[in-house]
């Protein structure tokens, strides 16, 4: 006997602002959060666009987290997730019933913020580490990953919310947040937890991390399309456009949710994950890992491919991903692949890297609630061989009973969630 797993709370801090409403209304309208941006003070930096959180971190804390007693050092990504978590918990009306909840989140690699690195760089070269240690309180900013471990988001949530369920900080590259949600789904399904808070927060909008992505050749850098640079599946796509934010979901067993009269958005019905075991630098050319993840999600949901109406694609706007993902969808769905709607939310909010799967899962849940497929914006001419229905340009109403949300990470780490309209 296993539990059905339902979604009862959602929270987002996105480049569109604080809150699920601002996120979803913009996504439904096909708005573009990508804008001209470069790291402050580095005008000549090769990356010239991003989907950024406009509010200052300090201001966000003052406005959104006054009731939290934050640790002495906390990175801004944890702030993003805390704001999203607070909204998700309030949305689920769970404030007083969180005690046994588990926490499964993902927040990416440790953040060595530019300001702290520059403060250290002011020191004589031979003395930097000594200075960093002895003058750490002055040298390193409060909102810096240098002085907190990368599970600060998970542990701060647990401590602030006084939960006693298990706590997980998932490291799964760009599939991390989807893996965290998948873990939460499985924990509730088996009865290990009744309530899980899951999702992620990330940002790579710093000189150090964007430089690393640039050296890998992953970032879009052409000026040709201005802020319409993130163009998943388009013939002129040129790489990922980084975004940032935090997104959290409350999952519950159906029994727990119904017992307390909770509003149910949708049901998580399946989850699949896989490894390419191919190369750390490129996805498997036949998309075997992506195929396996999607098939795993369908199998665990107990549905056939023909039951799915919508896929929220990984859709990174990189030359390789979009070809491989399309190929994998065709392999899994066969003739039905052309009947599906397949869209990329990243075209609007950029790539949140480790956290990417969290806003995309929320978009999928809301697509099912509103029976509306969000668009892939900036897609004007699909590339050769990319011939699925990518919901080009404008979202549309559609009947959606079952959907997948895909995440395929660097190094061939793949995850796919099956999400369905909830029926008693």
């Amino acid at each position, binding site marked *: 006997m296993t539990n059905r797993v339902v979604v009862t709370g959602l929270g987002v801090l996105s480049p569109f602002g604080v809150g699920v409403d601002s996120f979803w209304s913009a996504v439904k309208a096909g708005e573009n959060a990508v804008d001209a941006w470069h790291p402050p003070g580095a005008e000549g930096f090769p990356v010239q666009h991003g989907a950024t959180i406009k509010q200052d971190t300090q201001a966000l804390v003052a406005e959104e987290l006054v009731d939290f007693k934050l640790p002495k050092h906390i990175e801004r990504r944890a702030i993003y997730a805390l704001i999203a978590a607070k909204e998700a918990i309030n949305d689920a009306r769970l404030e007083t019933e969180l005690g046994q909840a588990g926490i499964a989140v993902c927040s990416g690699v440790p953040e060595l913020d530019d300001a702290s690195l520059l403060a250290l760089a002011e020191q004589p070269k031979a003395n930097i580490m000594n200075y960093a240690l002895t003058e750490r309180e002055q040298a390193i900013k409060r909102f810096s990953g240098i002085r907190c*471990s990368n599970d600060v988001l998970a542990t701060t949530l647990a401590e602030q919310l006084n939960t006693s369920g298990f706590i997980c900080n998932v490291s799964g590259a760009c599939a991390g947040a989807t893996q965290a949600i998948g873990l939460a789904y499985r924990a509730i399904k088996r009865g290990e937890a009744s309530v899980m808070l899951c999702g992620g927060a990330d940002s790579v909008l710093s000189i150090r991390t964007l430089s690393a992505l640039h050296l890998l050749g992953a970032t879009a850098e052409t000026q040709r399309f201005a802020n319409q640079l993130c163009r998943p599946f388009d013939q002129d796509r040129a790489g990922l456009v980084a975004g940032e934010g935090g997104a959290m979901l409350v999952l519950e067993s159906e029994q727990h949710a119904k017992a307390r009269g909770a509003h149910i958005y949708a049901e998580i019905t399946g989850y699949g994950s896989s490894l390419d075991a191919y190369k*750390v630098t490129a996805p498997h050319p036949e998309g075997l890992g992506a195929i396996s993840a999607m098939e795993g999600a369908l199998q665990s949901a107990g549905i056939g491919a023909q039951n799915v109406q919508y896929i929220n694609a990984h859709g990174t706007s990189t030359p390789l991903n979009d070809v491989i993902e399309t190929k994998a969808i065709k392999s899994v769905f066969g003739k039905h692949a052309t009947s599906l709607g397949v869209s990329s939310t990243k075209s609007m909010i950029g790539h949140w890297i480790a956290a990417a799967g969290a806003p995309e899962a929320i978009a999928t849940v809301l697509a099912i609630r509103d029976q509306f497929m969000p668009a892939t914006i900036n897609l004007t001419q699909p590339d050769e061989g990319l011939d699925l229905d990518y919901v080009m340009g404008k979202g549309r109403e559609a009947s959606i009973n079952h959907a997948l949300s895909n995440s395929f990470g660097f190094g061939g780490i793949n995850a796919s969630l099956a999400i369905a309209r909830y029926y008693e």
Partner: protein
Amino acid sequence: MLKPVYLFQGETLLAHSTSLESLLTHKGRLMSTPFESADLINHSIFISTLADENLKDVGAERMVRKTSERQARWLIASGVRTWRTYFNEPQNKSGLFIGLGTVDCDEEDNPELVQEPTAECLATAMLEERRPLVCLALLNSSATSHIAQLAGITGENMSFSPLLSAGLNALCEGYFAIAEGRLKHALCGGGSQKITPWSLLAYESIWANQDNYWLSEAASFFIASDEPRLNQHAAIGVMRQAYRARLQNNAHALTEQVNRITGSPLIENQHVVKVILVGANLEQQDITLHALGDELKSRAVVLDSYVGNTMAAATAIACNSALSYLHDAEQGFVIVIAFGDHAEFGMFLIEANND
């Protein structure tokens, strides 16, 4: 209905090539030295550090070596060697579950490369093509990808970071994947965070609040499988929680958790060979040993006193130790009780299977 999960002992990498077996039988001792950087912040920390792995013995191609850094190489070496001890070819329905440290910039010495403390100079330094694949080396889950590639593991997977609870969660997920029938074999384990001044900055609030703290670099793996083989012991239960209590009476909450284990029908009237405590601070040790009662207390082993705090490797080392203790036992159990750094608490119950 959960399936039985059989555990196959794997490799544990410890400093100075010390064998885990020699520590458990008191024939060897793991050496440590003072961590000089900790003196700068007025804390006393001792460390045992691992030698680098060149990965040639596991047949890693140049790209794997270029896109991995030191702590990833410990994981790749010990993980792949463990897998190949049992499997010579890729296995259907095989998965991978790892506790990882995080990767920082110490190997790059980033701030030292910046000529002037301006954003433009920082960008110039970071964009220099010294290591074009540094992005993948910085990504701690690259270790997962490399192990998958070298071992041919393509199934379900989950990696966690950065400290003890990361390894604990990895082993729990591996156990469930086998017990619930999704996988046939899972490579489970973890590797410690590498110990550097940068990690001291990140973990000061955890590591530096105790006197004479002992940190050890390590990596450890075992294989979980649904197939029994002769002399492979079975994991018959796992549990994970936090013992944070609403009234902050953590001692009471921890005692309750230990009582749940000792009162479990799974071990009632059964012979307990050992109780292994791992990751417990002095207060947690006292509370746990008291709650265990005299009989179980006499069979308790505080693993950290042998190997130090091995972070995300710790729970896998404890499970491999349990398999060693059960080696000659005809029946009975080893209970592994693991403590995370934020009141996380986990239990593994491993049964002898020497029919």
